[in-house]
């Protein structure tokens, strides 16, 4: 453990020392677009998806909640691109409206857990000693739990609602963020410019906010894109199990659950949201990988 720690510290110190030599964020992003077409494409696709979710009412003539019973369980056609479900609702429309919940569930708890995890992790890393000990043991306990099980317990006790989903997912993911934030902070704390800042009398809180946080942003961006799919998947699992989003709200996970009974006669009801989940998760991962490569100073030298 001790060996691993020092090695990690040495590596990140090397990284930190090279940040001084590397390009600005926008240059890196432009290089990513040029080099990693897959990541750039994923980014564009995700942006489109967000737009579709936001402008769902404009994009589809159907209603998400009420359907035409006469049209129930119809396969994909020109009128209903992805077919209809057991209540005659257009699956594509449901998918677009469900995207609002699923994407929100991907972004909001991830963002909240980033803020909490970053604050705790940076405090632990910078202050060291007892604060470090307490915060990180807490994080260890969180990480030792199977996270989905923990989320299930929370949802069972609090009841299924969007807000509770946010709460549960935030609670299960702050710890890994805190770990990353802590190790980044520890290596940045040793950097010469933090020392230079200390040597002119800058106080700890300001050092963390002004000198350490901005230099952690690249890793936080990467972490964010890599954590969003986890949140979306967790929500899907919870909703599939019936303890996540509740009707009449809808999310992709809930749609998969609802379509389960019709898997033989009308497979599109479950397959469409499954494919959507897969697509978003893959896009996030590709984008995250691309960003990681783009922001890693070691890979920027050619």
């Amino acid at each position, binding site marked *: 453990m001790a060996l691993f720690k020092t090695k990690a510290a040495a590596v990140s110190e090397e990284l930190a020392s090279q940040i001084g030599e590397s390009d600005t964020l926008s240059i890196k992003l432009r290089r990513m677009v040029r080099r990693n077409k897959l990541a750039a494409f994923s980014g564009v696709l995700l942006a489109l998806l967000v737009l579709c979710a936001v402008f769902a009412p404009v994009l589809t003539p159907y209603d998400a909640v009420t359907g035409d019973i006469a049209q129930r369980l119809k396969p994909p056609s020109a009128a209903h691109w992805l077919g209809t479900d057991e209540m005659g609702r257009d699956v594509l429309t449901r998918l677009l409206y469900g995207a609002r919940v699923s994407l929100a569930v991907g972004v909001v708890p991830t963002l909240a857990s980033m803020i909490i995890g970053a604050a705790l992790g940076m405090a632990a890393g910078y202050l060291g000693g007892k604060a470090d000990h307490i915060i990180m043991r807490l994080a260890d306990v969180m990480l030792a739990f199977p996270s989905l099980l923990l989320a299930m317990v929370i949802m069972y006790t609090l009841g299924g609602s969007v807000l509770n989903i946010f709460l549960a997912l935030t609670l299960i993911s702050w710890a890994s963020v805190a770990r990353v934030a802590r190790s980044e902070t520890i290596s940045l704390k040793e950097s010469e410019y933090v*020392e*230079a800042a200390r*040597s002119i009398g800058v106080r700890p809180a300001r050092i963390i906010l002004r*000198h350490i946080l901005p230099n952690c942003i690249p890793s936080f961006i990467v972490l964010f894109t890599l954590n969003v799919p986890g949140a979306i998947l967790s929500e899907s699992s919870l909703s599939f199990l019936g303890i996540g989003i509740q009707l009449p709200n809808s999310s992709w996970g809930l749609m998969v659950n609802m379509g389960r009974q019709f898997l033989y006669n009308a497979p599109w009801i479950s397959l469409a949201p499954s494919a959507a989940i897969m697509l978003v998760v893959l896009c996030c991962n590709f984008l995250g990988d691309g960003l990681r490569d783009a922001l890693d100073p070691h890979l920027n030298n050619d």
Partner: protein
Amino acid sequence: MEELTLKIEHLCSGFFTERGYVPAVDDVSLVIPQGQVVGIVGESGCGKSMIARSVMGLLKYPGRITGGSIQLAGRELTGLPDRQMQRIRGKDMAMIFQEPMTSLNPVATVGRQMREALLLHEKMDKNAAREQVLNMLERVGISEPEKRYNAYPHELSGGLRQRVMIAMAMICMPKLLIADEPTTALDVTIEAQILRLIRDLSRQTGMSVLLISHNLGVIAQMCDAVYVMYAGKIVEQADAFTLFDSHAHPYTKGLMDSVIDLKTNPRRLPAIGGVVPNLLHLPAGCAFSPRCPLAGERCRAERPEMEQLAPGHMCRCFEGRRA
């Protein structure tokens, strides 16, 4: 009596490691009269930076001051709480570091970093601070200060960055500037410019400078008084002229010879053989004795004390006069 900017007495500081206490600085006394440039010279690892950090109150864990006193313009610094040290750092004393390439925050503009001290210590508003920063940039010989103010560190060369660091350290007109190997990372012509800049600024403002270097040439150019350090202890101290002309310690002689060797016969190895001793297992006698050409029985058994050879010239060696 002339006024002392810095007075260090019997300073001990070291690291509490798992393998034991590492005495990186052992019983060091040092004074810097107002307006003077005082040098510390010695091989890598002898504890030069440790002295600087002890004075600044920036010791890295698990390092601690374990004894002695440090007075800045008559005010005791050891034992001061962190809040008060923060008020002194940057205002009454400041430090410039070895690596100009990494001493500036890569994501903040030069101007923003430089004005930080003014906002903190002088409670200036941003416009006044900006004026002052521009003045200071000009003063350290940076052309187009307006342009540099908004530049990011990676847009500047190493020499420019070190100038920025100096300007940043001097922005509140500290009484003491500590320069820890300020030119090691720079090429020779830039080195000369930076050193001249530090010396000129010291003369113009009456600021005292503690200059740390392992390069005797740098020390010779710059310093009024010189302290030679070995394995955590001062082994010889004198004014610069005496030290170069009639040094007494065999270690000082070794340092001089290695400079001369490099000049006259660059292929010969530097004159001091052997390696710096492990601070955890120092020899029973003089720390330099295993490497010393003059070492006798007594040197290996007994630790020499500082002895005065002439007024202002002290040496820690039994054989001192013979070197």
